[in-house]
């Protein structure tokens, strides 16, 4: 199991790195291209940059959840005994899974509809928007996976809810 998680983590890491870098490079290309090759039709760089950024965002958001690092209000938590915190953390994971499951369904609907309506961007590339939209259901599937793993870990006691706060 640990091996699988490590592989998933590595894949996610490199996907985030690649998508973010592509976004940055394209944004710079658009800026420089305007001065070096003014005639070049680069009206599509902006939307591809957005596409890459949203993919990186959803993968990174899911990965952060796997580490239990999402921001929460801990004003009350710090006064609670470890066992109670653990159960509350599992409860939070389950709520998160329910939310992710709904948004997976919702995002999938959006992808389907964009496919059916053949929705496209306004640039000369006329990119299909389902490529952009697909980031939501896939990101949510990944999020649910991470939350499931984390609740199992909390349940078995292999991680503690306050691990994060103490690590940093």
């Amino acid at each position, binding site marked *: 199991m640990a091996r699988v998680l490590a592989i998933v983590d590595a894949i996610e*890491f*490199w996907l*985030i*790195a690649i998508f*973010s*870098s592509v*976004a*940055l490079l394209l*944004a*710079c290309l*658009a*800026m420089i291209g305007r001065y070096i090759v003014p005639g070049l039709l680069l009206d599509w760089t*902006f939307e591809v*940059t*957005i596409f890459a*950024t*949203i993919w*990186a*965002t*959803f*993968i*990174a*958001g899911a990965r*952060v*959840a796997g580490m239990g*690092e*999402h*921001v*929460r*209000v*801990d*004003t*009350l*938590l*710090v006064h609670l005994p470890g066992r109670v*915190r653990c159960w*509350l953390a599992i*409860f*939070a994971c389950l*709520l*998160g899974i*329910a*939310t992710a499951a*709904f*948004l997976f*369904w*919702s*995002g999938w*609907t*959006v992808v389907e*509809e964009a496919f059916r309506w053949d929705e496209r961007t306004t640039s000369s590339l006329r990119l299909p928007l389902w490529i*952009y*939209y697909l*980031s*939501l*259901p896939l990101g949510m599937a990944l999020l649910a996976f991470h939350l499931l793993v984390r609740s199992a870990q909390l349940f078995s006691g292999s991680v503690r809810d306050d691990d*994060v*706060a103490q*690590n*940093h």
Partner: protein
Amino acid sequence: MTTQIILGSAALFGLLAVGVPIYVVLAGLAIVLLIAEGGSVGGIGQDILDHMNSATLLAIPFFVIAAGFIQGGGIARSLINMASAWIGRFPSGIPMAALLATGLFSAINGSSVATVLAMGTLVVPEMLERGYKRPFALGLTAAAGTLGILIPPSMPLVVYGLVSETSVPRLFLAGLLPGLLQMACFAVVIMLMARRQGGEARAFLGWRGVARANVVALPALSVPLIVLGGIYGGFVTVTEAAALSAAVALAVSLFFYKSLRVTAIPNVVVQGMSRTAAILLIIAGADLLADWLARAGLATQLAMLVTQSELTQTQFLFMMAGVLLVLGTVLEGYSIILLTLPLTLPILDALGIDRVHYAIIMVIGIELAMLTPPVGLNLFVMAEVSKAPFSEVERGMIPFFIAMLLMWVLVIFVPEISTWLPDLVLGAAR
């Protein structure tokens, strides 16, 4: 409707209190409310995707990645050393430098979240390293980050301009003096507090030391200079400035300070993206909740309540300030503008209140909204960046929050703070 509000608020506060991550609380609650309101399944996902498909949000990860390069690549260190050589003699020296840096950064981007994410990455570690207490460092940075939307450029002012038919350059000029005023207020707070917050006077290095620190910092100084020059020289748009700052910071770190190894680049990029993603998920949840409020017409009703009562100019402005504070507890910038401004405009005209003046009142209200619980984005950002408990950020922000409230009152009473500069440069508005 009343039942929905009571149940919704109870769920919001209850779930937040037991430590459910904020993005889950906001998104989950909004989904339930939207479905109850008759929203479609696809429409909810679409809302999230559409909100994220924007140039403003795009700039945020770029700025944060740039901040990562600046912090990890020796640029921040050399700049802080330079500042320290000049003003490290004073207990308030380093926080003052941090405040100044935040003001400068605010001049190259128009978002509060981008500012506080980048500055949280940059100046907080330096302040902690020099012995300042964590709540103070976090609170100062969370509050100073709001300058991002007051000092031009400012995205909320652009949206205000579009909705109210006011010229954006005029609004930007209007934000400048209040922005400087806010910095002055914060400077006073820092001077009053620094000594008790771990600020220590350091021995003066001598002028030779100052000169050397300056020389070492020269390449680092090129980063803000190139980006500022790029924007104000008309070479790049505000959106592009984010990418430019990342590129310049990377180049300077790699070629001048050589403290950043090429193999470390992916780490910096992924960390920057992860921080942004954690916040973007919260923003997505907050947007969904705002969408529900728009559909239910709640904010509109609240604003209507005030706009229909017969008030004098000042009474009206203070009532609206109250409305902004209340809405600001759960709503963020654009939603506040879109939900209240169209209703308010006719009253402004009837009472003879300058739209430019009201713009600044509104933007300060939005700044405060970034700091008020339960949904205060800047507080979340600081907790995310520093991995510190949320409660510490909240505690540290209070003195600065009070200073901003006092400034708000001043700005409400004295329209000239907002209108003098734009009227001077562009002539009085017609």
